[in-house]
C-alpha cells in the first residue's frame, strides 16, 4: 500500500523538477517548483520526519514561492513563444557525468529503511553511538520528549545560535544590496 503511494510521489516529484527545468515561462516554473516542494514534504512525512515536513511545507511551498513571485512582479516576465525550451546537449552531457558518478555510488549504500544502516545502530563494537545515546538519555536529561528539539537546543545549541545569526545577516545583506537603512 505505501509502496504505491511512495512510487507515485517519487514520480510526481521527478516530473515536477524536470518540467521546472524545461518550461520556458518563469511563472510556470515557479508554480511547478511549489508543487515539487509540496510533494517532497509529503515524502518527509512518509519517512517519519514530521518536523522537517512542517518546515518544508511552510518554507518551500509558502514563503519561497511567494518571494519568487514578488521578484517576478518587480522585474519582468519575459514573453514566451514556445512552451518548452530547447535542451542543450553539452550541458546535459556535463551533468550526465555527475549523474553517472552518483549512480555508481548507490549500490554501496544500505537499502532504504534497512535495520543495518549505520545511522540507526545503537551500539557499534560495544560502544554506544550518538543515536543510541540520544534515544536512551535525552528524555531523562532534559525532560523533553521531542528528541529533535532536545538535540537542536540542548546538545547542539551552538549550531542553532549560528543559524539565527545567519538568518539575521541575510536581512542585513539585503539591506546592503538595496542600499537602505530601514525596512520600509
Amino acid at each position, binding site marked *: 500500500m505505501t509502496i504505491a503511494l*511512495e512510487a507515485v510521489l*517519487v514520480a510526481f*516529484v521527478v516530473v515536477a*523538477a524536470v518540467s*521546472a*527545468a524545461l518550461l520556458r515561462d*518563469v511563472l510556470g*516554473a*515557479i508554480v511547478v*517548483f511549489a508543487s*515539487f516542494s509540496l510533494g*517532497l514534504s509529503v515524502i*518527509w512525512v512518509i*519517512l*517519519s*520526519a514530521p*518536523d*522537517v515536513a512542517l*518546515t*518544508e511545507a511552510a*518554507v*518551500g511551498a509558502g514563503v*519561497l514561492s511567494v*518571494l*519568487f513571485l514578488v*521578484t517576478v512582479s518587480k*522585474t*519582468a516576465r*519575459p514573453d514566451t513563444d514556445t512552451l518548452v525550451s530547447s535542451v*542543450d546537449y553539452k*550541458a546535459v552531457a*556535463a*551533468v*550526465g557525468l*555527475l549523474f553517472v558518478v*552518483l*549512480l555508481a555510488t*548507490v*549500490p554501496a*549504500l544500505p*537499502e*532504504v*529503511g*534497512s*535495520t543495518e544502516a549505520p*545511522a*540507526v545502530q545503537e551500539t557499534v563494537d560495544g560502544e554506544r553511538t550518538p*543515536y543510541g545515546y540520544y*534515544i536512551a538519555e535525552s528524555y531523562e536529561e532534559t525532560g523533553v*520528549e*521531542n*528528541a*529533535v528539539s532536545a*538535540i*537542536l537546543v540542548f546538545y547542539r545549541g551552538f549550531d542553532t545560535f549560528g543559524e539565527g545569526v545567519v*538568518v539575521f545577516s*541575510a536581512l542585513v545583506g*539585503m539591506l546592503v*544590496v*538595496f542600499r537602505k537603512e530601514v525596512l520600509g
Partner: protein
Amino acid sequence: MTELVGVFLARYYYVAFAVLVTVGLYMLIDSRNLVKKVIGLNIFQISAFLFFITAAYREGGEPAVIHEGGGPYVSPLPHVLILTAIVVGVSLTSLALALVVRIYEEYGTLDEENVREVISGD
C-alpha cells in the same frame, strides 16, 4: 542484470536523489533567465536533503518523540541538520533574489546573455 536492477530498486530514494540533483544542476547551468537559475539552485538544495532524510530512516521507525513503549525510532540527528539547512536556504535565496532585482534595475534585462553583452559593452 536483473540483480543490478533489483539493487537499484531497493535503493529507490537514492536513485531519485541522483536524478533530482542532476536536474537542479542542469537548471543552474543552462537557464538563461536569472530567476530560473535561482529556482534550479533551490531544487538542487532541497534534493540534497532527500539523501539525508533517507539515510536516517529505518523500517518500522517512529518519529523521534520518545514515549513509553515506543518502538524503534528513526535517527533524529539528520533531521536537526536539515532543519537548519532549510532556513539557511531561505536566507540564501532571498539574498540571491535581491541581487536579481538590483541587476534588473541596473541593466534592464533578466537574460544572462544580454547582461553579459551590456557589461562587456560598457
